């Protein structure tokens, strides 16, 4: 977080008000030949050790020297080049030692005795005086760095501007764009994290067996999770498996993640960021090279598979969801994806719903079927209108009774309206289907089934 800089926001050592140097506090002149401190300037071998070893010599009626160094005077404050001389009897130090002190002196980061010794020396040594001046001018140039928080939308604007001016020969496929954008956004969030952020606790939540499941980890653990599950796409594209030698009991996302976490003796650290980012860049790059041909290539998630273009959307969605988990854990704001990317993610969820509805029915999780009306594959069937509000929204007709049926407005039996981000939180298992803020009209059973199916799209 570059906290070093932020904490000192109001601290300006360059505004030559001259206060410190001109008017030494009561403690300043005390610093005379402390016999217990010779080692600071070269150790016992230093022949030019303290000149006044007989203990404190009060000047100007000052009190004897305290053992603990007092706050330093800012040497560079004030207009006059040197702090008023003669207040302390300087240490006598050799030229190489004095020279080595110039940086600390310019930063007002040495003891008052040393500072005085340097001051004294500068009157006699032209080379050191030149360097001292140069280094003090350099101190003025130390500034807090500019804020590193770049507007994530700037990336899209800049890249699009470039690509308009010179169309790419190898474009990033449209279906890979949300993943490209979301990984870049998360990486920017991680950029300034210090150790305390990397180890901040995060609770991953998802919906399982019609209840909320969760798993504790850390920010670094979440990135490890993304690394291992993105690895499914990497492997499908012919890239290396981030699990390497580690074998997971099954290729399912949770199983891979747990295996990765278990295999490490220590909890994941910030070191996981590099491999994760390298892999995500590699995925975008390789997807660009394989181009539109590869979009239909299957990516296995263990118990199901998705065509590559949907798997990339799924990974973009997961990246955003977990970036929100991380942002929440470290108390940072985090925005939803760009509307057109959000729209693609919602569309993926809407397309997956009929299969999930069918699977839930088979598993006996859905009481539905009372009104079930089977039609031939490809025929219009009973449908629910899913209306997603907000930017990135739209309308989807979800066939209720069979994945083979086609959604149809003529057979609409229910209508649900949700905000886009709320729908995604539901699909991520972060909001329960009973609590999701949804406007509902029509067949209550159908609505309940669809909301529960949406929540069960989530996983660790």
């Amino acid at each position: 977080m570059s906290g070093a800089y932020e904490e000192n926001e109001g601290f300006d050592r360059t505004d030559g008000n001259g206060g410190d140097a001109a008017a030494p506090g009561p403690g300043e002149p005390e610093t005379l030949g402390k016999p217990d401190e010779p080692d600071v300037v070269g150790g016992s071998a230093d022949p030019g050790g303290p000149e006044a070893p007989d203990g404190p010599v009060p000047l100007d009626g000052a009190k004897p020297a305290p053992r603990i160094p007092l706050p330093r005077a800012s040497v560079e404050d004030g207009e006059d080049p040197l702090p008023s001389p003669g207040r302390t009897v300087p240490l006598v130090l050799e030229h190489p030692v004095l020279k080595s002190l110039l940086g600390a002196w310019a930063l007002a980061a040495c003891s008052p005795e040393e500072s005085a010794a340097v001051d004294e020396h500068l009157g006699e040594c032209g080379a050191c005086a030149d360097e001292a001046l140069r280094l003090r001018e350099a101190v003025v140039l130390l500034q807090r760095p500019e804020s590193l928080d770049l507007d994530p939308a700037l990336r899209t604007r800049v890249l699009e501007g470039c690509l308009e001016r010179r169309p790419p020969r190898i474009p990033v496929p449209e279906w890979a764009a949300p993943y490209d954008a979301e990984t870049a956004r998360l990486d920017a969030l991680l950029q300034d994290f210090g150790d305390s952020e990397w180890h901040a606790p995060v609770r991953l939540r998802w919906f399982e067996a019609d209840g909320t499941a969760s798993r504790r980890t850390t920010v670094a653990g979440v990135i490890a999770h993304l690394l291992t599950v993105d690895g499914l796409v990497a492997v499908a594209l012919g890239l290396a498996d981030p699990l390497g030698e580690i074998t997971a009991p099954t290729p399912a996302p949770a199983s891979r993640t747990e295996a990765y976490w278990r295999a490490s003796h220590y909890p994941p650290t910030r070191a996981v960021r590099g491999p994760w980012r390298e892999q995500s860049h590699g995925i975008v790059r390789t997807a660009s090279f394989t181009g539109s041909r590869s979009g239909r290539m299957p990516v296995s998630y263990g118990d199901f598979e998705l065509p590559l273009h949907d798997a990339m959307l799924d990974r973009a969605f997961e990246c955003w969801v977990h970036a929100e988990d991380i942002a929440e854990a470290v108390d940072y704001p985090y925005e939803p994806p760009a509307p057109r990317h959000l729209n693609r993610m919602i569309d993926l969820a809407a397309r997956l719903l009929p299969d999930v509805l069918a699977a839930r029915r088979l598993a006996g999780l859905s009481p539905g079927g009372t009104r079930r009306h089977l039609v031939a594959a490809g025929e219009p069937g009973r449908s629910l209108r899913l209306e997603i509000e907000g930017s990135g929204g739209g309308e989807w007709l979800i066939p209720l009774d069979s994945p083979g049926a086609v959604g149809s407005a003529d057979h609409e039996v229910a209508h649900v309206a949700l905000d886009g981000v709320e729908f995604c939180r539901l699909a991520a298992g972060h909001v329960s289907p009973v609590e999701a803020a949804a406007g509902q009209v029509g067949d209550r059973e159908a609505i309940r089934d669809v909301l529960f199916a949406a929540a069960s799209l989530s996983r660790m």
Partner: protein
Amino acid sequence: MAKKDVPLRWDRKMQQRLARGEAAALGELYDRFASLVHGLAHRVLGDERAADGITRDVFAHVWEHPDAYDPKQGPLRSWIATLTHRLAVQRLRVTETAALARGGPGTAEELERKVRHASVAARADYIVQSMPAPLRAALELAYFQRRDYRQTATDLGVTEDEARRRLRLGLQLLATAHDAGSPGAPPGYGGAA
């Protein structure tokens, strides 16, 4: 030496990928350098939107003219910093001159001083970012956290001699920000990288 070769190989590869027209390479380039570019531009111009504009111009230039970078002349990072510096200072001069022409306050000399000041400040930022991390850490402790060099030595787990050496060397590097001569001259973004 191996330490230097790796980034240079990355630089060469990046240039080839850009020349080939690979959009994914442009994204990676942005991810690596956007905060550097935006930060420098902001330091010179002191304005968010103007810095956004420079960021757009810099990446557009690299994307349209990847061959303008010569890996033999130094790292891509220095080249991009130099380009950013040049474009930002140019824009500052244009906007300030226009303001002056409209009857704004100040004189031509003040304008030159402002440009020079912004130019040195941006170069100083770059030097601090690019200097070896141990030097930067020592300066941060001594300057921003007001630690004296003995405390700095303790914090960094080094000898007091070493702490003094790092503070001095860090400031020596930083002082080279003043060395570019006139603001129109190449700002010398190579040295500290």
